[in-house]
């Protein structure tokens, strides 16, 4: 009989990937210029984790998915109107920063606290999912600390595939150097998986799923607890964006090989 899993996904909002980001210094520390005006999306790595969680839950009747998010409440509300149409989940919202300039230990503590407060959590059926890092600006440390705070010692980062077995054990494929995967077997839960891309496409929008999710999303946002991130003891030596250079060229009827060759030459100019 399939195990009904409890899958908690940690994930928050990031600026829509195509936006132009400009770091600025404020009295409270570094920030992104006009961040609240930028369109936001669910962090793509966390999105993969959520879709994998929903897929796992679908295959194991009785399973449940929670999405735990720390972010500005207004932005969370906005992003949830897109995410909530994708897959069923229950939202646990925490009203706090999602700027990328928050100390990851403090964010991890807030997430772990929210997970521990979920009623009826059963460690023997518990998967904690998240992105292995934030797609735009994460330190790649948050999920690891969430696991440590929850006492979960079986952790896997950069996961592309999860195969669960009827006896409760599972196999995880983690990304390693050279485009290869490390294959790990784990005999029992709880476990924490920081997902890379996984293998699932983004689910289509389903209005019925959206309606179902909204029964919990809006109440969760209304009772979202504030999370204060003091960044005590953290000093930002410098903040910069990755160097980028853009060149646009319109070509027609060029072969893929020729396009690849041009790109290689262009990169070589750097």
């Amino acid at each position, binding site marked *: 009989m399939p195990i009904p899993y409890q899958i908690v996904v940690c994930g928050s909002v990031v600026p829509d990937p*195509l936006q132009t980001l400009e770091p600025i210094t404020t009295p409270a520390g570094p920030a992104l210029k*006009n961040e609240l*005006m930028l*369109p936001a999306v669910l962090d793509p790595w966390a999105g993969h984790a959520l879709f994998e969680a929903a897929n796992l839950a679908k295959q194991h009747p009785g399973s449940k998915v929670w999405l735990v998010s720390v972010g500005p409440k207004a932005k969370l509300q906005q992003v949830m109107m897109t995410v909530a149409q994708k897959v069923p989940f229950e939202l646990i919202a925490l009203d706090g920063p999602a700027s990328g300039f928050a100390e990851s230990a403090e964010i991890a503590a807030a997430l772990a606290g929210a997970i521990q407060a979920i009623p009826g959590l059963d460690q023997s059926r518990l998967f904690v999912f998240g992105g292995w890092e934030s797609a735009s600006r994460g330190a790649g440390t948050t999920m690891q600390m969430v696991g440590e705070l929850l006492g979960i010692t079986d952790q896997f980062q950069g996961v592309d595939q999860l195969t669960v077995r009827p006896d409760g054990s599972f196999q995880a494929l983690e990304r390693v150097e050279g485009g290869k995967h490390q294959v790990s077997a784990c005999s029992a839960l709880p476990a924490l998986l920081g997902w890379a891309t996984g293998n699932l496409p983004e689910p289509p*929008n389903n*209005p019925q799923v959206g309606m179902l999710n909204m029964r919990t999303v809006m109440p969760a946002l209304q009772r979202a607890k504030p999370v204060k991130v003091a960044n005590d003891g953290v000093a930002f030596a410098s903040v910069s964006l990755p160097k980028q250079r853009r060149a*646009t060229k319109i070509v027609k009827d060029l072969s893929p090989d020729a396009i690849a060759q041009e790109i290689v030459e262009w990169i070589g100019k750097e």
Partner: protein
Amino acid sequence: MNVDIVCVGFGPAMGGFLTTLSKQLLKEDGTPAVESVAAPGMPPQVICYERADDLGFGVSGVVTPARGIKASFPQLDPTQIPMAAPVKQERVAYLLDPIGASRRSLTLRSADALIRTCRWALPYEYQAVNLPWVPPFLRKHDGLVLSMGQFMQWVGAQVMSSGTVQVWPSTPVASPLLEGDRVVGVRLIDQGTDKQGAPADGFMPGMDIRAALTVVGDGPVGTIGRQLDEHFGLPEGNHQHDWAIGMKFVIDLPPGADLEPGTVFHTFGYPEPEIFGFMYVHPGRIASLGIFVPSWFDNPVRTAYRYLQHWMMHPYLWRYLEGATLRSWGAKTLQESGRRGEPHLAGNGYVRIGEGSGSTNVLTGSGVDEAWATGTQLAEGVLELLKSGRAFTKENLEQAYVRRRRTSWVEHEGRVAERARDGFQRGVVTGLIGMGLTGLTGGRINLRGRSMPPYRRLPTVERYYEGRIPPAEIAKLRVECAKKGASLSGALMDQAGWPAIPFDGKLLVSHQDALLMGGKVQAPAGYADHVIFLHPAVCQQCDVRICIDACSGQAITPGPEGVPAFDREKCVYCGACLWNCSKPSPTNPERSVVDFRAGAGGLHSAEN
């Protein structure tokens, strides 16, 4: 799926509707003020579907009197809305042609010469004349400068936090559900299809959303509104012949550009006399600026983007803009027929609000405020019907909504404006005089002009450039451009004397870079193409193909066998192709051979 009210499109009209409605669906104790039929025991289930990938994507920056908006939010504090500022000063300027490439009539050339001769006696600066006073009908005194994207995001947050209304972005609506002449809901777009709409991986057929009332506020080129117009026709005497494309930049002003937030510029006269310009200054050294290219600008190879760049470089504006940086870019169709473009406002099970319902005032150039007001009027009517337990029949909706609208300032001022722009059908100078007469006499005196579908206005390229570019030269350019796959409009503008744009990589960028850097245009996979050339044989015979030059995103290009090709990944959903087409549909002479259907993706900027 069954709901009580399904809404199509989240623009200012729907913002007004949902803001007003959501405040009154619950009593103070949290119990339903009215009970849902679709979900007994609950308040009415109200769902709004928005095509764009997020709220506020793809709408435009405005200056608005904001009467309707302020009525909905009496305590409105503009500082709470990003990029909002009270209007502080307004200027209207006539721009002369500083480079001599503009296609000006003898009358205008004479006027220009006179202005230059007498400039010492005029409020002349930087090759422009400031109008000594702004006509009252154009003033937006006490109004607001807004980024509609930011404003709609703010409104979305307000209405959704009420918990009584759901607004779902990224969900295009494909068609109305019709049972005879009754609208019983909408069908959402198919997902998981190939470009032709055939089922592919992950196919999910568009779901039917059935509702007692369908509220259509999908704008001037919205697919549901147009399908209803196809089915029901327009009221006798009404037409939708007049359009414009608005193309704009949002920029960071350079250091030293000394402009107060709330400053509003309107320009006319350049780059072509038919093209109007605007610049609105937001807080934080941000400005929205752009041009309107109307359908009565009879250039058969009109392209807004290059004209926009020449307009920005006019000395009157360039003194503020040199050194600025592009933040966002976008384009949008405007329905310029105004009150005379009004469709049937209500029928059994459906109502129309906003710009697509003919609410825009074509005299004052105001659309957002009017659209918002029609939404609030509908909400009051819907609440009246819900509370009295009356059905959403045509008769009841006429009484509860249309009657409110007919007795409101939207209707009164729309009637005054109705014929304000008729004169433009005969030329720019006649049009400007006509607008002035209409505005100053409260609509009692108007200049006449016969409005025609855009395709009937368009001359040949040879005719348009008569006396400026010889036909043989045009023929040569045609062949060269076809060979290179290059834009004919660009080549003709070069030939007509327009200088090359000196790209600086910041503000003056290529059209494609504007798409990527400013519009951040995206097209998710799994959806069918939404621009369709319905009659390929007609396209093959077409020697104008204005759809290619007029496409705001360069998404339409020369295609195989003479039929234009469409690239969904560049489309910004402006809808210019729909009305710029130079050929009438063989089945409906009021429509063109281009169809503009529901589709996903588009602009990813909320600053427009």
